């Protein structure tokens, strides 16, 4: 990803677009933040929000005509927020201490003719930019017109306060100036570098203004230019008539134009956001209760309590559509635009800590964000690309995915891999490819299922046991997946390249993308002629949990529903179902890189409905079950589940069991169907371990397989390299079967080796060293 790609990507996340109120405001006052502060009763905080963008806030805050209300999102649900009244309520409180801190002084001098809102704002902004500003006021006091026009709302002492602030910025005032006199402007220009005409006081006639298409005098915003290149003007009525905030804004835009003129830079570049503009923000109104505006009891306006209530009606417009539905996006505390920047920075680091590694590796790549985003921002593409890049550069943390990749390797290895015609057949009209995790979860059912397919489908049903390589792809190791799929394809072609019956939605998704030449039959389409399991008719309400791999696969989703509904089952739906379904925490190897988050994800998913869940992905089912949620695999309705009458209560097998299940399935198939003995077990597998349940839980949490322990004990017993404890009699041994060192504390007994504890680390002890 380069800077340009980053910018493009960032621009697709609209969260940082301004809310409608700020976009509509000629001065872009952040009314959303103002409301947040006022809703909390924080008047000083509200003041600070106004001070960020509002000139003469004591005055303008009292007379603002709030054109933002026309575009307020609240208008659609109860009525626009009364921002003008809230501004008044805010500035009726004493302001926090303000400091006049202009930028470093500049040499250029500026004449402002007329102290209207436009002229005062221009002076306010230019003085803060460091210019030497003199206001030429026709009346006997500054802001005479303003005081008179808004006498009912702006007390004289407030005007004085703001003028005192202007004076503190170094603005000088010339009162009783004959501004209308012929030659006055020319005299000012002889002494100044630029001048501003505050037309709200001076009127439009008699000045060297430009003309519009109809030949009338006009000042175009935001350039505020006149016929003279060093004279600028503003303060006339806005597009919606007389508007104090528009007049002030014209003074501000003129100040920008004058500053640019005096610095000799482009007057127009980058000014498309000056003044009211569109916003790309999206804010959902779903579930928002309509609430009418608060009416003030007094004619003077809101009291504090009323203002707080009115400000609380503000919707605080944000998008965050993706963050609302994704615990992962929520966990890292920001939103995709920020994440894109963090990931970019992570890639650019030469030395130092890569702080976004965890962010990159925790995404389940499920694509829900893209589905709910108004702009289709795909966090999964960003994370996957970053993972590939990390792998390429050798910067992927070894611990992030290793466990999952070893599990994949197991499925590809001799303990599970198989590709054969149906016993007694020389050809396969179809081949059944159940994927790796259904066999890991429910080998008994899988066996019954294969028997059923063989018995019910003509022409021979071959069997392929292997893996689609999804874990490698999720880990950013595309080439590894290429190799897995190439090997799979070879097996398949050897079997005559028949249509493939697929049971796993993830495999299905991978094959659609990567092996489009494979004709797929979804298991649930192949199973139409099958009786259900007796005794399951009394099931309680079931809701469907769609695996995230079916997000773009409506055929798969509906196929399962149809089959089950045809069997008379009533199925409910989750609010986040079908194309907006959620991941169980397994996808993208989230469970491997961030187990705590993956557990939170699946627990949250389980809480979405009190009903039992029905799914058609073995991993989804097992993860839901492990989180304490009652969950069924659709197969449970057709074949008795292993271990018990109540399939929804079946706990998901642990990591070691998942491997053992695969190996046993294959050995059983070889023995029963092909009449072959399984090859001799490797020596370490003959080590008999006794693992008490509490130790089993520790192993599960630490992702330590019983086979890892067998290797350690085997090595220790063969080599004698172990430690003994004189009091407990336990042995302690460590061994490094691959990139991790495993330690087992055990004792030997007649039944086998009792495991007391086990742990692992990745750091390696170098031989040698000083005694």
């Amino acid at each position, binding site marked *: 990803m380069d800077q340009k790609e980053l910018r493009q990507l960032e621009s697709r996340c609209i969260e940082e677009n301004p809310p409608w109120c700020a976009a509509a405001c000629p001065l872009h006052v952040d009314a959303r933040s103002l409301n947040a502060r006022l809703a909390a009763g924080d008047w000083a905080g509200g003041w600070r929000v106004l001070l960020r963008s509002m000139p003469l806030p004591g005055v303008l805050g009292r007379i603002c005509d709030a054109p933002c209300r026309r575009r307020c999102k609240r208008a659609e649900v109860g009525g626009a927020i009364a921002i003008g009244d809230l501004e008044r309520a805010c500035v009726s409180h004493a302001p926090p201490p303000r400091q006049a801190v202009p930028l470093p002084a500049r040499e250029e001098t500026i004449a402002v003719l007329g102290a209207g809102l436009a002229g005062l704002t221009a002076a306010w902004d230019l003085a803060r930019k460091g210019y030497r500003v003199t206001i030429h006021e026709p009346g006997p006091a500054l802001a005479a017109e303003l005081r008179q026009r808004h006498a009912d709302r702006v007390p004289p002492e407030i005007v004085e306060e703001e003028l005192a602030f202007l004076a503190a910025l170094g603005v000088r005032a010339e009162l009783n100036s004959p501004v209308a006199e012929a030659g006055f402007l020319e005299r000012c220009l002889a002494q100044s570098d630029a001048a501003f005409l505050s037309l709200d006081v001076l009127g439009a006639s008699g000045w060297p203004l430009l003309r519009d298409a109809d030949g009338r005098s006009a000042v175009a915003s935001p350039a505020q230019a006149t016929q003279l290149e060093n004279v600028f003007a503003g303060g006339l009525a806005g597009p919606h008539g007389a508007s104090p905030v528009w007049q002030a804004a014209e003074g501000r835009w003129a100040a920008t134009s004058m500053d640019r003129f005096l610095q000799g830079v482009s007057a127009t570049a980058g000014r498309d956001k000056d003044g009211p503009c569109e916003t790309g923000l999206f804010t959902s109104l779903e579930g928002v209760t309509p609430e009418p505006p608060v009416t003030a009891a007094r004619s003077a306006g809101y009291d504090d309590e009323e203002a707080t209530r009115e400000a609380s009606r503000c919707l605080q417009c944000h998008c965050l559509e993706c963050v609302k539905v994704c615990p992962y996006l929520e966990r890292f505390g920001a939103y995709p635009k920020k994440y894109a920047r963090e990931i970019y920075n992570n890639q650019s680091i030469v030395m*130092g*800590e*890569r*702080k976004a*590694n965890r962010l990159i590796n925790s995404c389940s790549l499920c694509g829900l964000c893209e589905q709910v985003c108004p702009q289709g921002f795909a966090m999964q593409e960003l994370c996957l690309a970053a993972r590939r890049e990390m792998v390429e550069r050798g910067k992927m*943390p*070894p*611990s*992030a995915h290793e466990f999952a990749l070893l599990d994949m390797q197991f499925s590809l290895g001799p303990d599970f891999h198989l590709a054969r015609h149906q016993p007694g057949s020389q050809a396969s009209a179809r081949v059944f490819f159940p994927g790796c995790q259904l066999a890991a979860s429910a080998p008994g059912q899988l066996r019954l299922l294969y028997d059923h397919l063989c018995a019910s489908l003509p022409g021979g049903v071959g069997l392929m046991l292997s893996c689609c390589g999804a874990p490698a792809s999720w880990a950013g190791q595309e080439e590894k997946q290429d190799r897995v799929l190439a090997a799979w394809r070879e097996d398949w072609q050897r079997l005559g390249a028949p249509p493939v019956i697929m049971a796993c939605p993830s495999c299905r998704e991978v094959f659609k993308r990567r092996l489009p030449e494979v004709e797929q039959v979804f298991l649930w389409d192949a199973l139409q002629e099958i009786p259900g399991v007796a005794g399951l008719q009394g099931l309680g309400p079931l809701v469907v949990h769609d695996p995230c791999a079916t997000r773009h696969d409506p055929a798969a989703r509906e196929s399962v529903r149809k089959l089950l509904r045809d069997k008379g089952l009533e199925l409910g739906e989750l609010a986040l179902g079908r194309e907006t379904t959620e991941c169980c925490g397994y996808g993208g190897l989230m469970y491997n890189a961030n187990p705590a988050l993956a557990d939170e994800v699946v627990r949250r998913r389980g809480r979405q409905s009190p009903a039992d869940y029905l799914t058609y992905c073995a991993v989804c089912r097992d993860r839901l079950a492990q989180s304490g949620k009652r969950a069924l695999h659709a197969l449970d309705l057709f074949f008795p589940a292993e271990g018990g009458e109540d399939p929804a209560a079946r706990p998901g097998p642990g990591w070691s069991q998942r491997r053992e299940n695969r190996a046993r399935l294959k050995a059983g198939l070889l023995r029963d169907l092909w009449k072959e003995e399984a090859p001799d077990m490797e020596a370490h597998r003959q080590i008999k371990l006794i693992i008490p349940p509490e130790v089993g839980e520790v192993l599960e949490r630490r992702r330590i397989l019983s086979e890892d322990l067998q290797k350690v004990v085997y090595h220790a017993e063969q080599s*004698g*390299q*172990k*430690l*003994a*404890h*004189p*009091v407990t009699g336990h*042995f*302690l041994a*460590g061994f490094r079967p691959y990139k991790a*060192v495993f*330690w087992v504390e055990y004792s030997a007994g007649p039944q086998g080796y009792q495991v007391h*504890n086990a*742990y*692992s*680390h*990745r*750091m*390696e*002890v*170098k*031989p*040698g*060293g*000083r*005694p």
Partner: protein
Amino acid sequence: MKQENIRPGDLAWKCCKCGLKLEPALVTVEYLGNEFTAELPRCPGCGQVMISEEVALGKMAEVEQILEDK
């Protein structure tokens, strides 16, 4: 990785090969090309080093994480 890696109980273990009690020793450990010296219990005879559960899941895990994010 230098201090407090050894608890008194760690030195109770005896090497089965040599029959000797473990003793504190400076040992080199390595991860992702980074080497450190740490004081760990070691058999004075054959040099077998013990990594306790506390060290493996504590200090070592912490350093592993830091190095993985380097």
